[in-house]
């Protein structure tokens, strides 16, 4: 569980984080999205006790980062966006070193390391020198390292950045496994679709402020004040199109190329949505489906961050 309260970080006059409040429940996979320089890494560094906040605080599993940084470090597995590895150290020894750094006994390490290498598919690389591994392998090894003390909270800063599509998919698979293990995961990305699929909740950060938080659909509704809807008709699409076009709560209506679907933004609440459906049936529109859909996240993201810039 992570609780962030009024977290602020200033570098001189520049405000990297501006009174950030955030609650991330146990076992949640929280996606932190924002442009480069929006404050994601700053937040993560503070949570990892690598950076002192200017004001505000945060709690990781109930431990205050300001008062109990040592306890916090035991709770978290941290993977920075950029990291180096030691020369002339083998993958197995790499994990062994960090295991020792967490005070894990030699015997336990011997049991643990093969399991971790297995989890990140690096068993066959255990005798390879770390600095010679590919970027994707290094990222996976670093993830295995962050798991060595079996932390309940994982803080992963851009774990998939700079990876080719295949390595990205492998990384995603591993993260899914971790999610299934019940870890609380805080993960960041500047690429939204990368996150959407596996996150329970997404927070959009821009210029040090949290612009929106919730599931992807919720964020969209909150930000655009409307939800995306899609209806499919069996026939008479013109009549349906005209019906929806006349509704004042509907905007950005467009017809799909398949000739049977109409997509639009609907502003009303659940009650209004129910009324709309009722009206459709009363009008005897030839509906076969009437549903909310998730729009392209990138559109939402662009809209939010652009909005932030304008204001």
């Amino acid at each position, binding site marked *: 569980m992570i609780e962030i309260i009024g977290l602020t970080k200033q570098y001189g006059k520049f405000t990297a984080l501006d009174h950030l409040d955030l609650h991330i429940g146990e076992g949640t996979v929280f996606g932190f999205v924002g442009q480069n320089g929006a404050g994601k890494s700053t937040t993560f560094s503070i949570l990892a006790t*690598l950076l002192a906040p200017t004001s505000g605080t945060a709690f990781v599993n109930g431990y205050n980062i300001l008062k109990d940084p040592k306890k916090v470090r035991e709770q978290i597995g941290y993977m920075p966006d950029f*990291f180096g590895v030691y020369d002339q150290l083998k993958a197995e020894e790499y994990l062994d070193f960090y295991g020792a750094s967490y005070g894990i006994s030699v015997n336990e390490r011997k049991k643990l390391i093969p399991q971790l290498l297995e989890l990140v598919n690096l068993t066959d690389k255990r005798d390879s020198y770390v600095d010679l591994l590919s970027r994707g392998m290094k990222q996976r090894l670093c993830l295995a390292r962050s798991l060595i003390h079996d932390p309940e909270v994982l803080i992963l800063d851009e774990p998939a950045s700079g990876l080719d599509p295949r390595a990205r998919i492998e990384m995603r698979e591993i993260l899914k496994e971790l999610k299934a293990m019940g870890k609380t995961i805080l993960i960041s990305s500047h690429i939204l679709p990368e996150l959407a699929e596996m996150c329970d909740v997404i927070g959009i950060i821009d210029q040090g402020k949290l612009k929106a938080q919730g599931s992807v659909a919720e964020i969209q509704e909150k930000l655009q004040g409307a939800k995306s809807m899609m209806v499919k008709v069996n026939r008479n699409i013109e009549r349906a199109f005209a019906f929806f076009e006349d509704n004042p709560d509907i905007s950005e209506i467009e017809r799909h190329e398949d000739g049977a679907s109409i997509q639009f933004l609907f502003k009303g609440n659940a009650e209004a949505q129910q009324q709309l459906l009722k009206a459709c049936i009363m009008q005897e529109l030839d509906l076969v489906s009437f549903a909310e859909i998730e729009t392209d996240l990138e559109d939402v993201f662009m809209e939010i961050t652009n909005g932030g810039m304008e204001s």
Partner: protein
Amino acid sequence: MKSWLMNPVLNKEFKLRFRSLKSFLGVLFYVLAIGIIVIGMIFVQQLSSMGGVNPEQSRELFMMLSVLQFALIIFITPGLTAGVISSERERQTLNILLTTSQSSSSIIIGKLVSSVAFLLLLIIASLPLYSIVFLYGGISPRELLTVFALNVFTVFVVGSLGVMFSTFIRKTIAAMVTTYGVMLFLVGGTGFLALIATSFTQMSQTGTPTTNILVYLLAMFNTPITLVNLFQPSIGEEIARMSGVSFPLWIAHLISYTFIFITAIVLSVRKLRPKMKAKK
């Protein structure tokens, strides 16, 4: 505190130290350099004395060898220690290390001991060269041990300064330059200032004998004076006469350098991780 042998940083550094050829070559060239100079000096002495062995000459040789080794150690130590933290920072491995539950003191001590251990190896590797000098007599094992102990002590103190600057200064190169600068001051600067202070004292000695405590204070911080004082106690007596302080110079040196050592380590441990500012 866990035993030093359980220190993860120390274990890793020991493991890695001899995986590269660099360290082997380091030992080779160190011994080679000292060896060539010692043999060269013996050769020159033999020439000038037309054969025959003189214990007084052997003693001179021992002193020169000690001073030489001392100079080399002071020259090498900053290079080996002033990068221990800053290079991890530059290679982006420091952040990860700092998020582990390893204590700051364990990291700092592990780093210091692992670099210093290599220097100790250099000193030990050079010991057989001393045996050449021993062959001719003129020195006692006690003197040899004292010089050895002073070398080890100095390595730790200079190493702690290197580690401290490495922790405080972001760039390795800047940390090294600073450490060399401070060492230059401690070795040369204090000596030079002590000389100036001495001449002032002598000048004002026309009337009643005056004493200048500054001479003592400067000499106390100067390692070469302490080293030479081991062989030539007359220097210490002279300083005591000029400064009016009769407290043994080498003890004052040990105390002042221990103070520097402890201060450097404490500051490094405090600085390594950011202060998270615990609010009351």
